[in-house]
């Protein structure tokens, strides 16, 4: 949820685009959750391989599972927001810079960093892949596996 700054004098959070030209981001939605074996760090860990099989269909291979998916145009666009410190509050506010405990009341802004108009939705049940790839433990060791859950879709496609 969004918490508004506690500074009594200002109860507004500006929501704006600071880049001037927000790019479209990609969104991938799958049923269930990705399970990662208690690996060290997620950074740069491979999730899987995505292949576009036709204009509107995609295939996602995660571990030994294959999912069929479609490209869905969202009914309403989504904007991706990031919380940032208000630019004029960063160096001109002597109170918050001298006393770090007050920094929670530093004015913040929400900046749009991207827009999402489409998503790749994988709602089919994954089917198991029998593949010779399995015998390459070195490469596959860290691959996340897919845990199945019946779940609601984030947004109903139109």
């Amino acid at each position, binding site marked *: 949820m969004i918490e508004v700054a506690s500074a009594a004098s200002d109860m507004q959070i500006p929501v*704006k685009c600071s880049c001037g030209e927000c790019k479209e981001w*990609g969104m991938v939605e799958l049923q269930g959750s990705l399970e990662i074996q208690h690996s060290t760090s*997620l950074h740069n860990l*491979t999730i899987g*391989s995505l*292949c576009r099989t036709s204009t509107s269909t995609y*295939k996602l291979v995660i571990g030994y599972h294959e999912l069929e998916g479609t490209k869905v145009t969202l009914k309403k666009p989504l904007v*991706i927001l990031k919380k940032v410190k208000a630019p004029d509050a960063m160096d001109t506010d002597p109170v918050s810079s001298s006393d770090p405990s007050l920094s929670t009341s530093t004015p913040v802004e929400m900046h749009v960093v991207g827009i999402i108009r489409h998503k790749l939705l994988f709602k089919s049940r994954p089917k198991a892949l029998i*593949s010779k790839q399995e015998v390459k433990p070195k490469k596959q060791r860290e691959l996340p596996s897919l845990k199945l859950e019946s779940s609601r879709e984030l947004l109903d496609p139109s």
Partner: protein
Amino acid sequence: MAELLDLNVNGSVTVGYSDSFATEEFKLLEVDESVLKELLNDGLTIKGDPNDEAVLCTSSTTYAIKYVSTSNTVLLLSPTQHSTLQSDATDCPENEKDCTRPTSAGVVAMVPGLIELVETAPRLDKLKVLLNQRPYTEDLDEEQMLEEDERGRTGLYTMDDLANQVQASYSQIKAALESVQAVEIEGFWRIVDGNFMQGLLDVILLTAVQHDWNIKLLQESEVVQVVRNDGYTPKIIEHCLACYGKEVETNVQEPDTRKWELEESKVCVHYAKQLLRSVPKWRLEDFLNAWKRNIPTGLQPELEMLKGEVLIERIGADSWLRLFSVSSLPTKPAERFSALFKENPKWEWDDLEPYLRGMQAPGQSVEAMLLRYTRKTQISPNVPAMYTPR
């Protein structure tokens, strides 16, 4: 979008966590195209202090912020963040051998849900609270106070102050200021004290009689010139004319002189309220006689004019009239109906209707609100239906 949607048919990418994965928190906000356009061009505002539920305002509309979570896995891929993982051809599974050499796409965040916007009524009750901290009264005191020092500004609010503290859009605040007949004086928006305003209108009406002015065609400059001698500022005199009258189309030959027509019903209501302030409850006949006596000649008072201002109830053989103004009632439907039924446990439609005005409930019809908050009973077809609390 990045590689994902621009991928050629049979093209493939390796999807992996980018090196900035989960280093930043992102929120997804669902907007419609018009809100998106305003967001990108002018920006929007989230408003609320810690005790409020936050709302999001465009320039015209107020939205409640609703969080919708999902149990699905939702990955966000930025067009600028690429996974630096190796993407050699062997990553492409054998059964996809028609896929071209893969590139990589980096997931920068996993989001647990999104924020939806639901249009909601502007939260304007706080506006009234702020404006009522210091209603405008005596001109002289005002000038001194403002000159003294910063403390003189306590309880005074500029448009920016109001926009900052009231959970409503700019245009909704503007409209509300107009409906409470607030006026901007020295940069501060003020509600004018009722008694002060009545006093000023009295002076204007009296002066009109003395100078034999037609109250349906008052010359602003003339009125200001005479009435300011009684200690009123031109600004507040003009505001009074605007509150009780409407501007008459300006003559092309005299563009500098505005002319005002005082509205019969507003002036009559003014006199009715004056009577009710001196005596809160009147026998109907006595009231009507006193009302007619007080009103300047040429104006015709009608009981109809007092709809939404007074309640009339029959006690025995007599009808009694008392002040009960719709403008003093809460704007939220639940609170409004509760206040109405506290005043009177059952209502006839004709009496109730004027008190349903000015409620803030977007998308809700009066019929829907009646169904929700009242019970309608009609004993027989020839008696009026009664509304009681549900």
